[in-house]
């Protein structure tokens, strides 16, 4: 029998995370006769199996235990590696969130192989499994073959694949498995979780990002950026220059040494477009640049550009968007 493809399911704000669903869609394409299995570790799996089934899982494997209340590599990797040794899947796809990337790397090592991280595409070429991913912070793209002898582990960047349509009619075999836990428990323990100020910093999930650069002049310059972001229901991004200046905190930084983002709309205001900034945002669906220098390199990757003073242009855009979106 041919081997199965696993998708490690991750919980999001409500139910299964969006990246998990995107990966389920892709796994369906890659799966052969061995089918596709969604594997979930959690303290409580209510509603999860049904949702995974609606997004195309052929089999759902639930590992339910209090040890999985919060993600911790010790228990998650131990339990998933034990199950993988037993079931021997061909491919394991992991959502490329920060914890997901840690999990993918550790799980691959536990199984004797190596992970390919933050893939933006995965496909077969004969017997080989290939993935596309960025190197040097997006300045280069590589096709990487995962030649691990055991299961081949890949983490997948959020928004690499479209969200598949829900299919209420899809039926999955749902199985609850007793997890093999680490003897002596987890060596790490969550003491506290301090939630961020909310969606404003969650750049990776945001559909719209309005970013500001040194052209803002001062920290207060971000007020016009925030207003536009609010009207669009988007998040606020920044260049490294303004993070270094202390005008806004590091979680807002986009680029090679900040976040890599792929919103539907990215509006760059007073950002010159240094290669390290472009590395983090050039794959956004639609890019708008506002800069008073017509030769700013940001215009080379933008779809639309306005040459002008951002303090004149941005408030106008805010007003127009407010009209258009309310009307």
């Amino acid at each position, binding site marked *: 029998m041919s081997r199965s493809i696993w998708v490690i399911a991750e919980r999001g704000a409500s139910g299964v995370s969006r990246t998990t669903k995107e990966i389920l869609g892709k796994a369906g394409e890659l799966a052969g006769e061995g089918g596709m299995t969604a594997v979930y570790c959690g303290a409580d799996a209510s509603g999860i199996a049904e949702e995974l089934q609606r997004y195309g899982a052929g089999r759902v494997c639930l590992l339910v235990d209090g040890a999985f209340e919060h993600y911790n*590599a010790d228990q998650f990797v131990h339990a998933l590696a034990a199950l993988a040794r037993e079931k021997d899947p061909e491919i394991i796809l992991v959502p490329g*969130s*920060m*914890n997901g*990337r*840690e*999990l993918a*790397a*550790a799980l*691959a*090592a536990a199984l004797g192989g*190596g992970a*390919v*991280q933050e893939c933006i595409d995965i496909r077969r070429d004969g017997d080989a499994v290939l993935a596309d991913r*960025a*190197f*040097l*912070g*997006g*300045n*280069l*793209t590589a*096709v*990487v*073959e*995962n*030649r*691990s*002898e055991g299961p081949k582990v890949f983490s997948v960047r959020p928004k690499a694949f479209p969200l598949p349509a829900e299919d209420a009619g899809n039926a999955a075999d749902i199985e609850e498995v007793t997890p093999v836990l680490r003897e002596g428990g987890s*060596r*790490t*323990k*969550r*003491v*506290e*979780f*301090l939630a961020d100020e909310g969606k404003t910093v*969650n750049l990776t999930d945001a559909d*719209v990002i309005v970013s500001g650069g040194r052209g803002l002049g001062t920290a207060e310059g971000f007020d016009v950026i925030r207003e536009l972001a609010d009207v669009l229901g988007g998040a606020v991004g920044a260049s490294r220059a303004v993070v270094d200046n202390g005008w806004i905190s*590091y979680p807002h930084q986009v680029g*090679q040494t900040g976040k890599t983002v792929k919103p*539907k*709309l990215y509006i760059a205001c007073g950002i010159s477009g240094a290669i390290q900034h472009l590395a983090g945002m*050039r794959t956004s*669906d639609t890019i*708008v*640049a506002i800069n008073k220098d017509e030769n700013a390199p940001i*215009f*080379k990757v933008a*779809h*639309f*550009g*306005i040459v002008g003073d951002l303090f004149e*242009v941005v408030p*106008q*855009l805010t*007003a*127009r*968007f407010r009209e258009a*979106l309310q009307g």
Partner: protein
Amino acid sequence: MKTIVFIKEVPETPDGVKISDSGQLAVDGDRAFLTDPIDPYSVETALKIREEKGGEVIVVSAGSTRAEKFLKEALAMGADEAVLLSGAEIEGGDPTATARALAAAVRKSGDFDLLVVGDRAADDNSAVVGPVLGQLLDIPVLTYVSEVREVDADTIRVVRTLEKGREVVESSLPAVVSVVKGIHEPRYPSLLGIRKASKREVPKWTAADLGEDPARLGAAGSPTRMRSLAPPPAPSGVEMIEGEVEEAAKTLVAKIIDRKVL
């Protein structure tokens, strides 16, 4: 407290970066290299812990002899010892194979309390080495650490900065910690530090010294292999919106609404 810090040379720009014959990341020899921008933060983290708890800081890098220069930069900052893992059997591996060499070096150097790595290297961006070290040495891993709150003889408490907030985690030691930029502002090396470091001899360990099976190291031992490496596709070209500010804003908003991205 014995802390081992892992640093890495990276190419200064993407120019000259290519694939080796064995499908690994390689760089034309005449290009400029830097110590990975994250490295000074990793070294600083270890030095801060030593200031508080005493002990020693050892810096380790796997790579070409060029990396000796960057190990000396870490010595100049204040690290106690440095080791270079070098030679054809070790160089040119993927992050997993590299981590195996690093793990073997850790075993060879005896007991330790803490390993510090960068969250991800600036060239391969893989964020693989830290978690792999954790598995190979059977110690817990704490990734994306933005703050070390407390270190005791056998526990560490850190803050991990994640997408939606900060997680305070406590772990037993020994452990691996991967740090993010900004954890501590790196100190500048003193002139005396630089002078002393320049005179130091950096020991070089080869695969034979590590006692690791060469088939698991370097290009030969790499479970991943690149088939191609190229710049991303060129952008499609910009449409400049001209006219008075009010008019331009109106036109742009209409075009964006048309694209149905909202």
